[in-house]
């Protein structure tokens, strides 16, 4: 896509794209077999001591620093590569615990990759221990304004009265009453958001090994028109029954206030590995 003339030397050079690191005893060759068919990338396991790097050989013509910025601004390329990164790790996760690497971690040679795996063995094993037998799940909470308002009307006489007014008033008065109701709902919602988010996080944290709050997503990103009031990530045992039970019970409790919960995952434990490996 980019002009070949700018990068003639590296055209055939191979880089090693590292998706993540797993324990050699967990990761089997099964990890790599079905992947080759499903994605463009052939996935290999590079074993170094007790660890394996989950890698693909990639063309440096595609991934080198000089061309990467241009690639990254190509939305199609980026989505395809990001999804591939995720799919490879999800596939590994079916059989083995994995420490996920950030997008586009590439080594120029197999020797450099192996050197990394052996030199940082201690930190990698510690990171792996933390996520062993566990997966990450995401829980998002959305508020349905109409159901929230209906809940208020049920509990609060003033709200009920105003709601009746709104439904019976006509013309300009109806408009004003509707505005007043909307403002009251908005001001109630103001306090409710934070309170509900705190309650949801505490309940889920109690059923998980660890958890944290992520940034809220705008409707354009979440794909739902309701407002997101909480976005959390949790580290849970690979058997998620207990967590899902807690989630279902929580969903029933907050449902009356117009809150819906959405579960995503299992994900590789992206949010529960160190951002950087400590120096050794």
């Amino acid at each position, binding site marked *: 896509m980019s002009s070949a003339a700018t990068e003639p030397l590296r055209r055939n050079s191979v*880089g090693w794209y*590292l998706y*993540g*690191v797993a324990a050699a005893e967990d990761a089997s060759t099964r990890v790599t077999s079905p992947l080759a068919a499903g994605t463009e990338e052939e996935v290999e396991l590079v074993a170094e001591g007790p660890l394996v790097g989950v890698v693909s050989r990639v063309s*440096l013509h595609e*991934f*080198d620093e000089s061309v*990467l910025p241009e690639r*990254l*601004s*190509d*939305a*199609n*390329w*980026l*989505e395809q590569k*990001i*999804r591939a990164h*995720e799919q490879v790790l999800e596939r590994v996760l079916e059989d083995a615990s994995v*420490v*996920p*690497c*950030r*997008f*586009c*971690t*590439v*080594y*120029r*040679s197999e020797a*450099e990759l192996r050197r990394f795996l052996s030199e*940082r063995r201690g930190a990698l094993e510690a*990171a792996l221990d933390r996520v062993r037998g566990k997966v*990450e799940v*995401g829980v998002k909470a959305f508020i349905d304004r109409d159901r929230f308002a209906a809940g208020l009307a049920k509990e609060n006489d003033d709200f009920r009265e105003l709601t009746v007014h709104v439904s019976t008033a006509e013309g300009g008065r109806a*408009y004003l009453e509707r505005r007043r109701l909307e403002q009251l709902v908005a001001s109630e919602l103001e306090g409710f958001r934070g309170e509900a988010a705190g309650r949801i996080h505490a309940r889920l944290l109690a059923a998980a090994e660890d958890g944290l709050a*992520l*940034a809220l*997503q705008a409707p*354009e*990103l*979440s*794909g739902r028109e309701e407002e997101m009031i909480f976005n959390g990530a949790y580290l849970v045992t690979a058997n998620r029954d207990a967590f899902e039970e807690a989630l*279902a019970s929580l*969903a029933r409790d907050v*449902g009356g206030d117009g809150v*819906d*919960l*959405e*579960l*995503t995952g299992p*994900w*590789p434990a*992206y*949010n529960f*590995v*160190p*951002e*950087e*490996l400590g120096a050794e």
Partner: protein
Amino acid sequence: MSSRELEGYLSGQPAQLADVLERVLDKGIVIAGDIQINLLDIELLTVKIRLLIASADKAREMGIDWWEGDAFLSSRNGRRELEERLRKLEEAAGLPTTSQEESDR
């Protein structure tokens, strides 16, 4: 919407691109690989990609399907046009809603 809805929460839907981005771009171990996007670039990239998704979804809601063709996002002109439309959408989103209310009356 989902088989899990009866249990009170939604699950089992294909991963939203936004959720994948949130993790693959922002999280995961950062290794000093030989080649790596630096963190600042990742932040810029994340913002940019989120805007791209956001604008595409907003457009879909509005019934505009200009981004559907493969050629669009991959072509340079397409991207420029997309950025221009995105800018307009952002401006529109920044406006107070009074004009909407007036048209409601």
